[in-house]
């Protein structure tokens, strides 16, 4: 919960800007993988999906034209160390994020170490606009609550972490999280995309906390 002293906002108008609006979101080192040549040694293809139930309504995200890339996208922060995300997150953590198109399977290159999903969210409001000093700042992110552990074993080249389905209530609080195992279909899709040169191993994300 935040407290804002508006006398510092000055008279007249201020520019509403966030990290997003200032273009400060760093690019992620966890990139989508389209073919095996993009997967270096020491990297593993992580395959999974993020779902939200009920899904986002078409007009639910308010995104300016510069921020359309965040539409229907879950931002998923990972780290090889377990941390309390709310107390220790920094801008640098955004360089370790999976950009997961909502409801679509993602294939990303991740360092070949067990990791944690520390925090996930959806960008709900991102636009540059002029507001009055008394205007209510609308926080831009809706959290998807849950911390998960993903195991890896030596020799893994591709792992399937499952579909993480977040159930939300009308307040956009996470009521329940399911990790759905659709490994059979994921394997078929993986072979179609990457061939049979490497195998996809199941290593479902394990919920370990809120």
């Amino acid at each position, binding site marked *: *919960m*935040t*407290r*804002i*002293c*508006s*006398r510092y906002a000055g*008279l*007249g*108008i201020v520019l509403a800007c966030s990290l997003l609006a200032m273009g400060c979101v760093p690019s992620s080192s966890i990139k989508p993988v389209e073919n095996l040549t993009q997967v270096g040694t020491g990297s593993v293809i992580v395959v999974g999906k993020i779902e939200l139930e009920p899904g986002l309504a078409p007009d639910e995200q308010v995104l300016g034209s510069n921020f359309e890339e965040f539409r229907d996208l879950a931002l998923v922060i990972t780290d090889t160390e377990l941390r309390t995300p709310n107390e220790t997150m920094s801008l640098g953590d955004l360089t370790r994020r999976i950009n997961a198109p909502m409801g679509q399977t993602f294939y990303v290159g991740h360092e070949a170490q067990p990791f944690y999903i520390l925090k996930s969210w959806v960008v*709900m409001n991102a636009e540059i606009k002029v507001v*009055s*000093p*008394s205007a*209510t*700042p*609308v*926080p831009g*992110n*809706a*959290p998807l*609550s849950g911390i998960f552990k993903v195991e890896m074993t030596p020799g893994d080249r591709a792992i399937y972490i499952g579909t993480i389905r977040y159930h939300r*209530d*009308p*307040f*956009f*609080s996470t009521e329940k999280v399911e990790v759905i195992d659709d490994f059979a279909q994921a394997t078929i899709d993986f072979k179609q995309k990457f061939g049979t040169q490497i195998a996809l191993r199941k290593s479902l994300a394990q919920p370990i906390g809120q």
Partner: protein
Amino acid sequence: MKNRSNNIYWVTLMALFSATLLSGCASMGDGRSVDDPTNSLVFAYIDMDDAPTDMSYAKLQQVAPKSEAGYWGMGTDEGIIVNQYIPPGSFQIAHFGGNSFLMGEHQYSFPTYGRNATAVTIEQPGIYFLGAYKYQDVDTGFFEAGKFSMEPITSPTEQALLKTIVTMDWVKGTQWEARIRKRLMELSQ
């Protein structure tokens, strides 16, 4: 010159709008009759003794069903915040604020997304107590935005607050006289 005039007009308009918001003394019914039987009375209490300012306005966020305005103004009086026009739906306190001569104007905001302690889902018209809380500052770094927490308190009780609300001017001659007294009877049993 025209631009400057426009700017002055715009700033004046915004100042008037802000003043309306900050006056905070009137609950806004959004065109609903105070005697509409589908109205619910929603109220809470915030002890602002340790806050930088008093509380002169509060807003209730309507999260479902979605509405164009999205927020309901709450009447404020000595820490009590109340609105007697609330239709069925899901709501929670979104922000409140006030000002003081020394500290200036402050706004205190809950996260927009995610349920907070004041969240309520109204399916049947009634009287809904969102709780009594004490404002507490949370230490932050010098360059960080101020933060606060809302600690639940056991006093004043729902009953004590309703006894105050029933004496408010707007209650007289409305359905709320009987409905509040009925609720007080229930609480005293």
